[in-house]
C-alpha cells in the first residue's frame, strides 16, 4: 500500500515536471512572439492580442503543474503516513510547490505574468535536482521528527521561503531593468514589464507580508527544539542561518520604513537577505553538521 502511494507520488511529480516544462515553453514563445510583433508594428504600439492566447496557455499549464505537484506531495506523505517533510527531496518538491504557489497567488492580484518564465524554469530545475540527486525512498520519521511542530515549523518555513524567493526574483528583475533604463530605453520585450516603482513596491510588500510568518516559523522551531533537544536555542548552523536571514530581512524592512531606502539599494539588500535563506537550505543541509541533519539528506 505504502509502495503504491510512493510510486504514484513519483509519477505525479514527473508529470508536473512535464507541465512546468510546457509552461516554460509557452512563456518563452510569448516573450519571443511579442518581440516579433514590435518589428512589424510601429515602435511604441505593441499588439499583445496575438500572444494573449499563448500566455493564457502558459498560466494554465502552470496551474495544472501546481495541482499535480500538490497531489504528488500529498501522495508522498500518504506513502509514509506522515507529513511529507522528512528529507531534502521532500523539502525540495514542497518548496517548488510553495514557490509556484506564491507566484500563482500573487498573479491573481498583480500583473506579474512576465515572471512566469523565471518561475517555471526555477521550479523545473528544483524538481529536476530533487528527482535526480536528492531522491530517497519513502521511509518513516526518526523519533526526533515525530512531533506536531514538524507540521507547523516546516510548513511555515517552506511558505516563507517560497515568498522570499519570489521577492528575490522581483528584486533581481528590478536591478536588471534598472540597468537597462540607465543605459537608455527599455528593450522591446521589456516594455510591457511593470515600472521600476511597481517592482520596488511589490518586492517590499511580499517581504513585509511574509516576515511575520518567518518570525513565527523560527519561534515554532525554538519551541520544538525545546521539547526535542532540551534547549530552545543552541546556535546550531541551521538556527544560526535562520537568525541571519531574520536579521537581514529586519534590516531590509527598517531600511525601507525608517531610513527610506528605495530602489537599487533596497533591491540589493533584499537579494542579500534572500541569498542567506538559499545558503541555509543548500549549504547547511548538504555540507553542514548539526542537529538539523538527519540520515540521508
Amino acid at each position: 500500500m505504502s509502495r503504491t502511494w510512493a510510486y504514484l507520488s513519483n509519477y505525479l511529480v514527473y508529470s508536473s515536471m512535464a507541465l512546468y516544462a510546457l509552461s516554460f515553453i509557452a512563456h518563452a514563445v510569448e516573450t519571443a512572439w511579442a518581440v516579433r510583433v514590435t518589428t512589424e508594428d510601429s515602435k511604441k504600439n505593441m499588439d499583445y492580442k496575438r500572444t494573449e492566447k499563448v500566455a493564457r496557455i502558459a498560466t494554465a499549464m502552470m496551474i495544472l503543474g501546481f495541482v499535480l505537484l500538490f497531489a504528488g506531495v500529498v501522495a508522498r506523505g500518504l506513502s509514509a503516513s506522515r507529513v511529507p517533510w522528512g528529507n531534502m527531496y521532500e523539502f525540495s518538491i514542497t518548496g517548488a510547490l510553495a514557490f509556484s504557489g506564491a507566484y500563482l497567488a500573487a498573479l491573481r492580484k498583480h500583473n506579474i505574468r512576465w515572471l512566469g518564465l523565471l518561475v517555471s524554469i526555477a521550479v523545473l530545475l528544483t524538481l529536476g535536482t530533487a528527482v535526480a540527486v536528492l531522491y530517497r525512498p519513502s521511509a518513516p520519521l526518526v523519533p526526533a521528527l515525530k512531533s506536531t511542530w514538524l507540521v507547523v515549523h516546516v510548513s511555515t518555513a517552506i511558505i516563507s521561503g517560497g515568498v522570499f524567493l519570489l521577492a528575490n526574483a522581483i528584486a533581481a528583475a528590478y536591478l536588471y531593468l534598472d540597468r537597462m533604463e540607465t543605459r537608455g530605453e527599455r528593450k522591446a520585450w521589456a516594455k510591457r514589464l511593470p515600472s521600476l516603482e511597481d517592482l520596488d513596491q511589490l518586492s517590499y510588500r511580499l517581504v513585509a507580508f511574509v516576515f511575520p510568518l518567518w518570525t513565527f516559523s523560527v519561534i515554532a522551531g525554538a519551541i520544538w527544539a525545546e521539547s526535542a533537544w532540551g534547549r530552545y536555542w543552541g546556535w546550531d548552523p541551521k538556527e544560526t542561518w535562520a537568525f541571519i536571514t531574520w536579521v537581514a530581512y529586519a534590516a531590509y524592512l527598517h531600511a525601507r520604513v525608517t531610513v527610506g531606502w528605495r530602489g537599487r539599494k533596497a533591491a540589493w539588500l533584499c537579494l542579500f537577505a534572500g541569498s542567506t535563506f538559499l545558503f541555509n537550505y543548500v549549504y547547511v543541509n548538504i555540507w553542514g553538521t548539526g542537529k538539523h541533519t538527519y540520515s540521508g539528506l
Partner: protein
Amino acid sequence: MSQEIEVPELGSVGLLRYGWRQLTSMRTALILLLLLGVASIPGSLIPQRTQNPIRVGEYFKNSPELAKWMDQFFLFDVYGSPWFSAIYILLFISLIGCVLPRTIEHFQAARALPPATPKNLDRMEHHTSWSVQGDELELARAWFKSKRFRVLEKDGSISAEKGFTRETGNLFFHLALILVLLGISFSSLFGMRGMAILNVGERFVNTTTSYDSLNYGKLFNEKNLPDFALTVDKFVAKYNLVTSSPEDYTLDVKFAKGDLTQSELRTIKVNSPLKLGNTSIYLQANGYSPVVTVRDSKGNVAMQGPVPFLPQDSNLRSIGAIKVPDADPQIGFVGSFVPTYARSGAEGAVSVFPEALDPRLLLAAWIGDLGLDGGVPQSVYRMDTSKMTQVGLKSLKPGETFVYPQGSITFEGYFQWVNLEIVHDPGKNFALLGGIVAILGLLASLFTRRRRIWIRVGKTVEVAGLAKNAAPGLDVEIAEFVAKLKGEK
C-alpha cells in the same frame, strides 16, 4: 595671522550626549543589526565548543598553530565571545534608547486629539469636493464613529485620524525583543544543565553528585534543584527492520517528587520530556552496558556489574573499558559490544542491527598499571594501555567465560542504558512570552496604516486625506467615505 578661534567646548557631558545620540540613531542601529548577522556567520562554519567539542579538538590536533591563533579571537566560542556580546549589547542599548522616548511620545500622542483640519484642503492628496447636498457633516460624524476614528470637530470641519495601532505594535515588537533577551540571560544566569547515564533498573536522586556532567549559571543555587528521584523501569527502542533507523524510543520511569515517599509511573519520549516546574528531563541517547563478573585466579570475585559502553554507529556497535584497579596486579579489558553480530572481512566483528538479537562481547585482557593513581582524569570508555601487557583476546556470547592465566571474566548479559539530560531553565517562559508578543506586535505594525481624513463643509463639501509612509489603500477608503456622504450605495 594667528587668531585664536573660539571653539565651543564639548565637555564630557556634551561628548556623552553626542555619543548617545550617535548610538541611538537609526543608522547606527541598522549597521549594528547587519553586523550582528555577519558576526553570526563564523560560528556556523567553524566548529563551536558548545556544540561540537570533538571537532574543535581535531582542529587543535591537526593544526595547533592556527587553532591557537583562532582561539585568541574566540572563534571556537563565537556566541559567548566578547566581540559578539559587544555587538548585541550595543544593539540593545541603541534599541532601548530609541524605543523608550518613542513610547513616551506615543503615549502622549495617543491621548492627544488629532490636529485641526488644514486650511487649504485642495493642496492635500485625494482631494475631492462637491456642492452641499444635505447633512454631510452628520453622516461623516457617524461614519468616523463606526470606523473608530479619533476625531476633532471644529468650525464645520472634522479632522479624523486612525491607525495608532501601527506604532503601538511596532513598540510592543521592540519591547518584546528586550524581553526575549532578558529571558535568555535569566536562563543562563540561574539555569542548570546536567547529564546522567542510567542503566535500566538504576535509581537517580536529584543531587549535584548524581550527575556525570553538570553545568550551571553564575547565580544558580544548589538549593534550587527540585527534589525528585527516578528509577529507570523500562526502555524500549523500536527500529526499522530494513534501514535500521530508529522509529520510536519509550522510557518508563518510576518518578517520585517532594519527600520521595510516593512514586508514580511516567513515560519520557524524545519529543515529550518529563516536566516538573521549570525543570525538564529529556531522553537524549541510549546504549548497552554489558554485565560482567571478573574473578582472580583463586576464583574470588574482583568486580561484578554493568559497564556502560559508548555507541559508535547507527547499529550500536559500542566500545568501552572494564577496569579492575583493586586486582593485584591491576587488570583491565578493552572491549567492544555488538548487539547483532556479523563478521566483515575488513572490519572484523560488526553489528548489523541495533537491537540485541545476537550479542557478542569482544575483549582484550591487559595486565599491568591502569594509570588511575596519577591523578590525570581518564575517560571511562577508554583505557591507557601504555604500561600494560596484553594477555589474551576473546569473543564471548552471553553466559560464556574467558579464562586467562591471572583469572577469568564472565559475560553475564547486558542492560540497556539511557542518557538523561536534566535542564533547569527559569527564563524560557519569558522568552516565549516575548516571542509571542513580538509576532503580535509585528502583525499589528505591518498590517495597519496610519492615516488622516478631513472634511470641511461650507458652501461646498471638501474631503482630503493623508497616509503616513505613503501606504496604499487610502484612495479606496476615501472613495467609500465619499460614496457614503453622497448617499450612494
